[in-house]
């Protein structure tokens, strides 16, 4: 049988998609490479090529240490707690009982709200409710607790995604395995470690990789929760640092070089994390 689409028209089908992708991602990516080698300030029409100067500058940039530390701290915090909480919730919700769907909806609904809304609501809760009920100050105003504070908002705002992925994975664990284990007299923990964990390993690897790479790029939440990475840069992430280089410091060329280094770092992390997990997955 010949191809379902006549020759030529199959390329035409790609054009709309490639048009949008090309204009908003492919071409900017290439011009970005160009900008990274210039001293463009983000405003003026002219700029000079400075070779690898921006990259050399990066190695001695003391201001870069703060966002790197913040980004890694935030990403690890979110990844660890997100996966512990969602795995727990998924195991709990993976039984039949009345109210199960309502609970699942409750855990997912916050995921539908924008980061701005989540940050505003939790900003108020941290400030007013913590103050009045626990007598504690808002973590968002403290250098030490601002990142856990923001991470807390992110967890509320994004747990739904991993929860759904884990629930789908748990639903795929064949019941015979659990029954066999029950007959063999395996205890709950042994059943969990020897059956559930290996069976949901693929979902675990997806969730950890996704949470990690997404939270390493985080921009919206710290931006909205602390209006730009405060107090005193204590929650400034890499994404915000790159943004500030364009809008606040007028160093677009340098910011672009940082963005490229950041991209390579992200690809490296994403690749190695999924490598580590892939080697541990079991085939059924």
């Amino acid at each position: 049988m010949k191809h379902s689409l006549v020759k030529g028209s199959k390329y035409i089908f790609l054009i709309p998609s490639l048009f949008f992708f090309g204009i908003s991602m492919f071409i900017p990516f290439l011009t970005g490479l160009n900008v990274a080698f210039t001293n463009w300030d983000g405003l003026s029409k002219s700029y000079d090529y400075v070779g690898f100067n921006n990259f050399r500058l990066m190695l001695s940039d003391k201001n870069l240490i703060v966002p790197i530390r913040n980004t890694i701290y935030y990403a690890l915090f979110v990844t660890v707690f997100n996966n512990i909480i969602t795995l727990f919730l998924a195991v709990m919700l993976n039984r039949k009982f009345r109210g199960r769907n309502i609970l699942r909806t409750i855990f997912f609904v916050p995921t539908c709200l924008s980061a701005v809304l989540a940050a505003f609501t939790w900003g108020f809760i941290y400030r007013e409710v913590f103050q009045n009920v626990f007598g504690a100050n808002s973590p968002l105003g403290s250098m030490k607790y601002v990142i856990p504070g923001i991470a807390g908002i992110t967890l509320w705002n994004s747990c739904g995604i991993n929860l759904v992925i884990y629930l789908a994975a748990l639903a795929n664990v064949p019941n015979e395995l659990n029954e066999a284990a029950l007959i063999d007299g395996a205890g709950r923990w042994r059943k969990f470690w020897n059956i559930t964990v290996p069976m949901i390993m693929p979902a675990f690897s997806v969730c950890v990789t996704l949470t990690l790479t997404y939270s390493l790029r985080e921009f919206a939440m710290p931006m909205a929760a602390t209006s730009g990475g405060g107090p005193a840069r204590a929650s400034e992430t890499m994404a915000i640092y790159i943004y500030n280089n364009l809008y606040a410091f007028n160093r677009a060329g340098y910011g672009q070089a940082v963005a490229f280094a950041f991209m390579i770092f992200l690809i490296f992390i994403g690749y190695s994390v999924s490598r580590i997990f892939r080697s541990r997955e079991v085939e059924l």
Partner: protein
Amino acid sequence: MIRSGSINLRKIDCLDVLSILMLFVFAAIFIFPFYICIVTSIKTPLETATSVLALPSEIQWSNFSQAIKISKFSTAFINSSITTFCSVFLIVVCSSMAGYVISRNYKQKFFTLIEMLYLGAMMLPFQIIMIPVYRMMKNMNMINSLWGLILLLVGTSMPYSTFLYIGFVKTVPKELEEAAIVDGYGPYRLYWQIVFPLLKPITSTVAALHVLWMWNEFTISLIMLQKDSVRTIPIQQYFFFGQYTVNLNLGFASAVLSMIPVIIFFLASQKYIIEGVSAGAVKG
């Protein structure tokens, strides 16, 4: 005899009680912000100052009408609706066509190349193209234009939505298409009358997910929309909430108003959203 429910028949012990308790604590934490939002949105500032948690003595409906006025809610709502509707429409049209031909011609180098390009682009952090995109849009006089924003949203969504379509088309049998070719259908009629209707399940998922994402989009909108008249809800609220003089009760009234459509949409399309999240993750 072992029934599937027999696993639940063992004795309830301490750990069960503890984990059910934890589940309800989590549920309470997840609902609590909604309580705060609603209660604060119908109180007077004085009532909020006296007690953050208490219910109001009288519901302040006027908070909502005032919030609509000062947060320029109607303009933002219209802008958000236009942006979301147009970009989701374009995303579905473009990525379904692209996903279809890529999936049907996966043995050809050119199409594999495009697929690899899209897969790679999914890994990119937005910051890598932020500076060039801003420059390009400025040169094209498209900053503060909803069309410019839509162009970018569609382009940056292309990799993931196409990827979802590629996966789905693989499961659609070719027989119908082959029969239609014999019947003399041209490529475009074949696609829109035969193939596209078959893709309805994944189209619902792609559309539902992207409605949520486009409605809440923050990063791209923030750099693109700098004038009040074009701002979408998240951006408008970002600046509105950021004002120190803002009356918190009005802030929450605006927050509640913007939550209502999203939550209604989520409840109506929950099935597709949850399917989409788990499908994307399993294949990703």
